[in-house]
């Protein structure tokens, strides 16, 4: 076994690998860029080597610097994590040449699976199910129909040179194929100047299901069940789970065996993932193989009890797999949420900055429920603009899928994050979504269920009862404390607060009467429903935990002027608790309209002004580019929303802007 390994990565995955290495008694070496001097992975490692500027291309992606760091520290092996150098055969090759072990598959396997066409050929040869289709040039409508009949409907007719949906037609029968062929051909000609089209099977409501495989250098390969990652936003996985609610044992075995066959075909000798697209009818077709540790590997670890990083290190060191296929047992259900620094209410724009507060839910196993949080950040750390804005992977495991979902929802509610915008409300809303809970998934789930994006919902029904009860409790605790201020004129009879109060949640009002009992605060609503609230919350805490009507609840609390903002289950609301008289008078107050933003261009995210496309006095048309702001390595072009005239520009290229900074003004 290795005495010392280097982790050629950063963030949560570097930390996660170090945890296992430490358990195995292996010393760890971190590498870090200028942006990561204070990063958690640097802190955790036994040694750390500086490898250059913040830009990954000049640090984490430079193989020579990694090899140099190995030499300097005497690290015998390198774990690449995911991303960066993990799937570069040349890197694995360079390590081998330098006499350093690559903790991953052999370079030939990486190469073979890295090429889309070659990997499909391997798959086909290994008897893996691939999407039925015809890659050759189709010359006539009749030929198209013949091919389509052979594949089975529906089919997709696609421009060879295509992209962006242009020249793409879906056909459910022979007639549609004829018509679609003509249309697709002509569209392809006009769009791409190339009228070649091909046909393949169209999978309706596809699901993303992948098989975890594990091989050693002695020809042993096993599979560790599947993961379903159908909840995606623009091809980016958001929620992953294992096992898949779609599969039965027979299909699982079929997929697993095909994945193993493919792995064997390339002498696969590490942890890898064979990705499939699956139809709702449990048909499945090979997509590609990822020759690395997958982001979502923890769900597999939790249902199988196998530490994948440990296995990778052992097989890299030449050990034989200690596990046989028959040893692999799937127990319970695991759900993973990817917590990102992005604003779900602003079309998921990335958010960067200092994590002024970072309090993840408690990890560990309790009452059959496991909470695991893989992260590379800490309170006071920075989400930088240079790398992936992932904050953490929150994973829960429980005996059943619904229990795992409930545990995940609870853990998300308890997750406290401040300083940056994050997607926890969106993840929490997903956990409550009935279609998700029913397991009726497809990769189109988010686009279909959130067609207009995501907005914080106002509480209604039972949620409103809950929010009102929590708000009333918070107010009550604060009032009890105010009664104890020094210097009162009748210290023996401190001022008494009215127990009839009005809770305002946004614009909705709830009349409540409070009754303080020894063990609980009874919140009577309209003298009809009564909710018992029990909590040890004290002022200043950002997380309210307690029982509402006997049910455990976690609510995020942030102070506001004369009230607080409450967040729970993807619902957020401004709560204010008034006396009845205060509420009457507050209702006389005019509604303030927000700032008129129609005449200004606000910076939608923190970023750097790269270019200005307009000058003061210039007339612009709707849709015309106004300026470019770079954030998270992404160049975002900001465009005019309507025809207008630029009156004033407040920024210059090179300025770094905060969210909502006024970039320019219009007439």
């Amino acid at each position: 076994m290795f005495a010392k390994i280097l982790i050629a990565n950063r963030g949560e995955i570097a930390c996660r690998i170090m945890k296992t290495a430490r358990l195995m008694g292996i010393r760890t070496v971190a590498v870090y860029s200028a942006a990561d001097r204070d990063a958690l992975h640097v802190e955790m490692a036994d040694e750390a080597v500086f490898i250059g500027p913040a830009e990954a291309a000049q640090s984490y992606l430079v193989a020579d610097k990694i090899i140099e760091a190995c030499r300097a520290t005497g690290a015998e092996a390198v774990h690449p994590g995911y991303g960066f150098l993990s799937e570069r055969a040349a890197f694995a090759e360079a390590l081998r040449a330098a006499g350093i072990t690559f903790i991953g598959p052999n370079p030939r396997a990486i190469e073979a699976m890295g090429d889309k066409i070659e990997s499909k050929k391997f798959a086909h040869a290994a008897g893996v199910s691939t999407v039925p289709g015809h890659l050759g040039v189709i010359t006539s409508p009749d030929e198209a129909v013949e091919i389509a009949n052979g594949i089975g409907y529906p089919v997709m007719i696609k421009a060879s040179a295509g992209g962006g949906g242009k020249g793409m037609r879906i056909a459910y029968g022979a007639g549609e194929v004829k018509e679609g062929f003509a249309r697709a051909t002509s569209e392809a000609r006009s769009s791409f100047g190339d009228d070649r089209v091909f046909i393949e099977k169209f999978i309706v409501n596809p699901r993303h299901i992948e098989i975890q495989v594990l091989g050693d250098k002695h020809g042993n390969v096993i599979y560790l069940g599947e993961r379903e990652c159908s909840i995606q936003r623009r091809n980016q996985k958001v929620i992953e789970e294992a096992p898949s609610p779609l599969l039965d044992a027979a299909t699982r075995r079929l997929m697993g065996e095909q994945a193993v066959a493919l792995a064997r075909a390339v002498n696969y000798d590490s942890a890898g993932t064979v990705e499939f697209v699956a139809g709702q009818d449990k048909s499945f077709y090979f997509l590609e193989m990822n020759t690395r540790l997958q982001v979502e590997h923890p769900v597999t670890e939790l249902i199988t009890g196998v530490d994948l990083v440990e296995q990778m290190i052992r097989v890299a060191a030449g050990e034989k797999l200690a596990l046989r296929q028959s040893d692999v047992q799937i127990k319970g259900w695991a759900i993973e949420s990817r917590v990102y620094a992005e604003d779900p209410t602003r079309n998921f724009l990335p958010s960067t900055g200092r994590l002024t507060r970072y309090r993840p839910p408690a990890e560990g196993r309790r009452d059959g429920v496991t909470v695991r949080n893989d992260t590379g950040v800490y309170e006071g750390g920075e989400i930088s603009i240079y790398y992936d804005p992932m904050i953490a992977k929150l994973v829960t495991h429980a005996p059943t899928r619904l229990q795992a979902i409930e545990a995940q929802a609870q853990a998300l509610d308890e997750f406290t994050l401040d300083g940056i915008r994050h997607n926890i409300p969106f993840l929490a809303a997903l956990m409550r979504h009935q279609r998700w809970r029913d397991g009726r998934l497809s990769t189109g789930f988010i686009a279909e269920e959130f067609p207009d994006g995501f907005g914080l919902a106002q509480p209604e029904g039972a949620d409103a009862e809950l929010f009102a009860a929590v708000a009333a409790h918070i107010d009550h605790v604060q009032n009890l404390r105010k009664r104890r201020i020094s210097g009162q004129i009748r210290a023996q009879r401190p001022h008494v607060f009215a127990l009839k109060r009005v809770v305002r949640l946004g614009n909705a009002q709830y009349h409540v009467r409070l009754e303080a009992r020894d063990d609980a605060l009874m919140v009577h609503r309209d003298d009809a429903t009564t909710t018992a609230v029990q909590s040890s919350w004290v002022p200043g805490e950002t997380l309210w935990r307690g029982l509402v009507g006997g049910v455990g609840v976690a609510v995020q609390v942030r102070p506001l002027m004369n009230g607080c903002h409450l967040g729970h289950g993807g619902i957020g609301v401004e709560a204010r608790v008034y006396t009845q008289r205060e509420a009457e008078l507050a209702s006389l107050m005019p509604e303030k309209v927000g700032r008129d933003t129609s005449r200004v261009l606000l910076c939608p995210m923190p970023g750097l002004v790269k270019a200005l496309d307009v000058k003061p006095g210039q007339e612009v048309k709707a849709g015309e580019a106004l300026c470019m702001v770079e954030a998270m390595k992404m160049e975002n072009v900001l465009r005019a929303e309507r025809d207008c005239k630029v009156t004033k520009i407040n920024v210059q290229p090179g300025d770094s802007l905060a969210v909502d900074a006024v970039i320019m003004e219009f007439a």
Partner: protein
Amino acid sequence: MKEILESLEARRELARAGGGAARVAAQHKRGKLTARERIELLLDEGSFEEFDMFVQHRATDFDMDKSHVPGDGVVTGWGTVNGRTVFLFAKDFTVFGGSLSETHAQKITKIQDMALKNRAPIIGLFDAGGARIQEGVAALGGYGEVFQRNVLASGVIPQISVIMGPCAGGDVYSPAMTDFIFMVRDTSYMFVTGPDVVKTVTNESVTAEELGGASVHTTKSSIADKAYDNEVEALLQMRRLIDFLPESNTADVPEIPTFDDGERMDMSLDTLIPQSANKPYDMHELIAKLVDEGDFFEIQEAHARNIITGFARIEGRTVGIVANQPLVLAGVLDADASRKAARFVRFCDCFSIPIITLVDVPGFLPGTAQEYGGLIKHGAKLLFAFAEATVPKVTIITRKAFGGAYDVMASKHLRGDVNYAWPTAQIAVMGAKGAVEIIFRADIGDDDKIATRAKDYEERFLSPFVAAERGYIDEVIMPHATRRRVARALAMLRGKMLENPWKKHDNIPL
């Protein structure tokens, strides 16, 4: 007998009706409340004791004798805020437009006298049209009586003004002499002369909002300390402010049970100071993590944002916070920031509120605009205020403390009681580059030499240790231990006794 008692009720009803239902409705329509409604919001329920409800004016000119409303346009009395006494007067816009008559003024001065004699804060709610023209000089005399009492009470009891409607002419000077002025957005404005007079005299066309609205006075003129979106918000926040303030200059600061442990460590503060000395950070984060429950009542938050002032609590007791804000103009001291902080420091000193000063200041702002604007004297105000203050003074230098600004910001030399520095502190005359170019003038042009010199200078002087070697800094502390250190320092300073030499009063460079 019953009839007699009932007649009192009837008289009260009449007085409470103010200017009548139509005027009350008009007031509501403008988004404003009546004087009595405002009092209800400000005070503990049922605690208001009204005085002089039946006072009427004595004017006879211009047929004024035919027009009487009991109360005469102002509601006065006292009550409690969370059980603690406050005196108040509230102008009633529905009665004679809240205008000030001789008797109206007498009602106010009676309350002012009571507040001063009984040593409790006084709050004025303004919504009025100025002097009652029909009374002429009698009204002017009334103003003078009010002003005189404002001055006598200054520094003895807290005086707070809330502008909730028009406040013009003679009405503006009473608020101007109180400790704090708050405004309500869109419905309140303050000016000495209104838009019409401005137009006649200077030919400038401005609206009331442009001339003296909440936004002007909270950002540009600094007349107002904060603006609120509506009256309910404003009055409930006044209750919150009162909870921070002592009753008088002889009373102790109020104490409230806290759930925030004075020993609490905050590891995230260890990374608050960025790697690069030129990168800003938000001083609000340190304040939030230093004080009890992150609860901070900011004063003048929209004006001179390069310095932060406001009230908070440590271990349940009120403190005043003065902090440079690196996020705005690098936290530099300019004329506005110096005046803003000086006034706040003097308020704290008046009322025995300990001052915590958080320092990250690159110096005073250079330039003709500042020098012509009297930076020397404005800067001196802050220096003067810190130097004369006898309340407990705890200072933390987080990063830069350069030049004269180091001295000004509650340094040891100005009788700072406990002066701490973070290891990231740089206490020096100036930054490395500037210093080296003066000391090693001969080397200018030789970039390598200058760079080496600058590096040497940085290592030797841009640290807290030169100051610590001299005892100017009592201890270099870990950022994460700041709350514990400050809490312990304040606890130790509870018994502080320090008196300035007897004088009639000082002569601060106004």
